[in-house]
């Protein structure tokens, strides 16, 4: 113990290390044991690999875009088809990032692994549905790749009509892909709702749930309620394209703005599918690495639910320039501002949590700090866009591009990375190089800001988005942005190398390397097949008073009062009630 400070009369509770048969990674072998696994942890790991590959692919496309925009006349794509190539690359970048990475990243990859463990359950409620949702994700991904290798896709990830009903690219393959991914998302959400409602062990009340679970729960509500609308919209789009039923295409008396209403009714709540789980991750990261109770637990929990509900009312702010009636536009603007309050509450709470804490600047904490910085910029610049007059100028410019990248990349991706680094020892039982992890965090932070800060200026100066070529006066800022993207890419590669290297040469991870109090730190790293040897004792998830640093073994342990067992007396030969005591 550090300075031998174990309080008198208490014992150490530490699960130690798992044996090979307990460890969920090694307890069964062979490819089939993974392909047909029903273990939520293995499904989580498979998702993690899937979303990482998608992210790498979409990230390379992003680099291609940035390199192309290094010169006003375009640097990468040349010749008669240059614009077409550029349009397909930015479409695929957006579609893959949104549908295959950002939406499933935290809920499906980290959520699948963590929800049952943090809850103290053995698995999710429907393990087979869980596996189904992973394979649906794979099939959806195959449709996207198929679209790429047939005739490409050049509609932008929003599939706006009537362009999407008239272009000759693979709109149907891609929308089918998104449709199938929607089911994957609904299944995951459904599973989490049922799991959290029904599988909490004794003692796990709603307000003893870690905030990650609150965030996952609110996300799941959105997934289940909003995704079907996207599914219907995409089916209608396919019907419009093939049968000209006349809903969206003005040539057949349809209205393109109807499509936008339908699309954003899903896709705006989907923005919260992307960011709410990130809030959950950050709440846990800040608290654990500050070794301090999270400030305003209930406000954070309620604000997640508030965001989930308000998120359904604001879709119209994507259409402030589409020519809706002024009254509609103003109502949507007013509603939009309401969402910023619960988001602001969370930021204040995180800062307050750090105040007078005992902060360890570990890699996850570095990512959490980066998250607060970047997400605050992302959130605040949303105000320029929610304000009607300024939005008329900024809409569809690089200002919007910068804003949503600050929220989605600076928010979701950074939280995802922070979460992966935070739970990596739990996932794989290995410690990574702290030095390498922090270096990656710093380079990613710098690269990210260098990429997207100039884009706010570009947008304010009137540079429209989705341009393959641009006016020369914008060149300087575009070049800064390209240098930033390269830096960001280097940072991400370092992060990947650090994590992969840990699998080979990392130290064995203790059960609780950071000093967390939530349940996942009470089982071994990696967890056993059924997560807990026996039903865990559920306590306050943010009570760090019993968590002590064990210098000798470089780990945190939980202490608990030594319980006096009843004295081992042999009972009287005859129970007192047996013969009436006489």
């Amino acid at each position, binding site marked *: 113990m550090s300075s031998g400070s174990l309080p008198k009369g208490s014992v150490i509770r530490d699960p130690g290390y798992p044996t090979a048969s307990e460890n969920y990674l090694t307890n069964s072998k062979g490819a089939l044991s993974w392909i047909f696994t029903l273990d939520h942890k293995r499904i989580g790991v498979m998702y993690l690999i899937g979303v990482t590959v998608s992210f790498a692919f979409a990230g390379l496309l992003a680099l291609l875009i940035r390199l192309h925009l290094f010169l006003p006349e375009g640097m990468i794509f040349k010749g008669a088809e240059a614009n077409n190539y550029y349009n397909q690359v930015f479409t695929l970048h957006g579609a893959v990032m949104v549908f295959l990475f950002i939406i499933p990243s935290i809920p499906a990859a980290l959520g699948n692994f963590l929800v049952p463990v943090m809850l103290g359950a053995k698995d999710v409620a429907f393990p087979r549905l869980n596996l189904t949702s992973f394979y649906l994700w794979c099939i959806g991904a195959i449709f996207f790749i198929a679209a790429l290798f047939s005739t490409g896709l050049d509609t932008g990830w929003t599939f706006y009509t009537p362009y999407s009903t008239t272009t000759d690219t693979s709109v149907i393959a891609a929308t089918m892909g998104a449709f199938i991914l929607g089911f994957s998302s609904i299944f995951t959400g459904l599973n989490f709702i049922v799991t959290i409602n029904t599988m909490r062990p004794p003692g796990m009340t709603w307000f003893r749930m870690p905030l990650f679970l609150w965030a996952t729960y609110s996300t799941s509500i959105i997934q289940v309620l909003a995704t079907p609308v996207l599914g219907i919209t995409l089916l209608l789009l396919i019907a419009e394209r093939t049968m000209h039923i006349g809903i969206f295409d003005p040539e057949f008396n349809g209205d393109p703005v109807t499509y936008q209403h339908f699309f954003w009714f899903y896709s705006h709540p989907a923005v919260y599918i992307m960011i709410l789980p990130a809030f959950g991750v950050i709440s846990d990261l800040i608290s654990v690495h500050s070794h301090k109770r999270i400030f305003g637990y209930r406000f954070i929990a309620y604000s997640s639910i508030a965001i989930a509900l308000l998120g359904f009312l604001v879709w119209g702010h994507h259409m402030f320039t589409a020519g809706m009636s*002024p009254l509609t536009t103003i109502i949507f603007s007013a509603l939009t501002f309401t969402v910023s309050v619960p988001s602001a509450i969370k930021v204040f709470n995180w800062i307050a949590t750090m105040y007078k804490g005992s902060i360890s600047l570990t890699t996850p904490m570095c990512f959490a700090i980066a998250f607060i910085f970047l997400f*605050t910029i992302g959130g605040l610049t949303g105000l320029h866009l929610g304000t009607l007059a300024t939005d008329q100028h900024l809409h569809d410019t690089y200002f919007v591009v910068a804003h949503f990248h600050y929220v989605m990349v600076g928010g979701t991706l950074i939280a995802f990375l922070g979460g992966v680094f935070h739970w990596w020892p739990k996932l794989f039982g290995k410690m990574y190089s702290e030095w390498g992890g922090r270096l990656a965090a710093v380079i990613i932070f710098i690269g990210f800001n260098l990429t997207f800060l100039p884009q706010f200026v570009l947008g304010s100066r009137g540079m429209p988005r989705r341009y393959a070529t641009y006016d020369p006066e914008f060149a300087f800022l575009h070049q800064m942005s390209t240098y930033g993207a390269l830096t960001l890419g280097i940072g991400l590669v370092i992060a990947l190398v650090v994590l992969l290297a840990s699998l080979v040469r990392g130290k064995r991870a203790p059960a609780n390397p950071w000093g967390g109090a939530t349940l996942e730190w009470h089982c071994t790293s990696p967890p056993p097949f059924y997560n807990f040897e026996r039903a865990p004792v559920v306590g306050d998830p943010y009570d760090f008073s019993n968590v002590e640093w064990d210098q000798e073994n470089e780990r945190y342990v939980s202490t608990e009062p030594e319980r006096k067992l009843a004295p081992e007396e042999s009972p009287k030969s005859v129970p007192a009630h047996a013969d009436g005591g006489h």
Partner: protein
Amino acid sequence: MMLMNLPKAFSLLGDYSEPYAWFPESASSFSEINDSLYYWITITCMVFFVPIVIALFYFAVKYNKPKGTKAESNVAHNTVLEVTWSIVPSFFLVGMFIFGAKAFLEMRDVPDGANEINVQAFKWGWTIDYGSGVFHPELHILKDEPVKLSMRSTDVIHSLYIPAFRAKKDIVPGRYNYMWFKPTVASEKVSDEELAAAIKQTKDLGESWNFDEHQFTPDGYRFYDLYCAEYCGTNHSEMQTVVVVHETLEDLNAWIKQYSKRDASVPPAEYGEKLYKNRGCAGCHSIDGTKRVGPSFAELYGRPEEMITGDKINADENYIRESILYPKAQVVAGYQPVMPSYKGQLSDDDIYSLIEYMKTLAKDGGAAK
């Protein structure tokens, strides 16, 4: 009052030619209110952002403790504090909403007596209708006069965006969208020598007019950029034109007159070349043989072309006329049926002039056919 002066404080940053500029030049009645709102929101954001970031990094350093140290405090909540920081930002948000909505209503409320101009957007260009048969891709308007644009699209959604006016509106096919603005700064005219030099250079190179390089129109006016802001397919980024603000009505009318119907003294082929440049043909059809969205006009006239139906058709007068009026009837193999119809937009004489111009691009001047 201080609010109104803020943009001036940033005026050093406002120079368009400077790579660090924050805004494009300010040239309409909307610019000032828009920019002050923008600065006001930004400053409000800073008032919140700066303390947050200072606290964030200060706490991270100050409370950085060795492992195992207990936190100094474990306060779990403070209702007064939490309610305060939920309510105080709301006041700022209400302010932003009200001022933003007010300015927006002004942008939607067209003043009486605004000059009405019809705008047609198509893949990938603009046609501005100046009435009595004058069409031109450039938007020419009058200083200090409110202008209402009535906009329609022949194909997909476009969006008309003039950064210098801080004005933007989507153009949705199947409906008329409108926008209005009042330009406040007239475009300068460049000197005749400069214009002559640029025209000569363009002629020598045999290229089309380079707006980016010269920064003035072929008529010698400085201009504001007009972009398409809603993604509309292949050449979205080339769907740009310019806005010229004239100081006087006489100047504007003189400009319009230049582009009125063909004068009997002008040869049809020469007028056809003008139409080729002004009516959006150049966006899709090259005259040097390079393949763009549509077939090149070079050596097109009289050539037998294979259609997507498999038929072979000679590109003669009748075929060209049909392609202009009913572009989807017979499409050349290898191209998409994306051209908008020019029915009702080009007079018989216009079509005749275009065909005469295309004859000049044929190998033998079209004489043999």
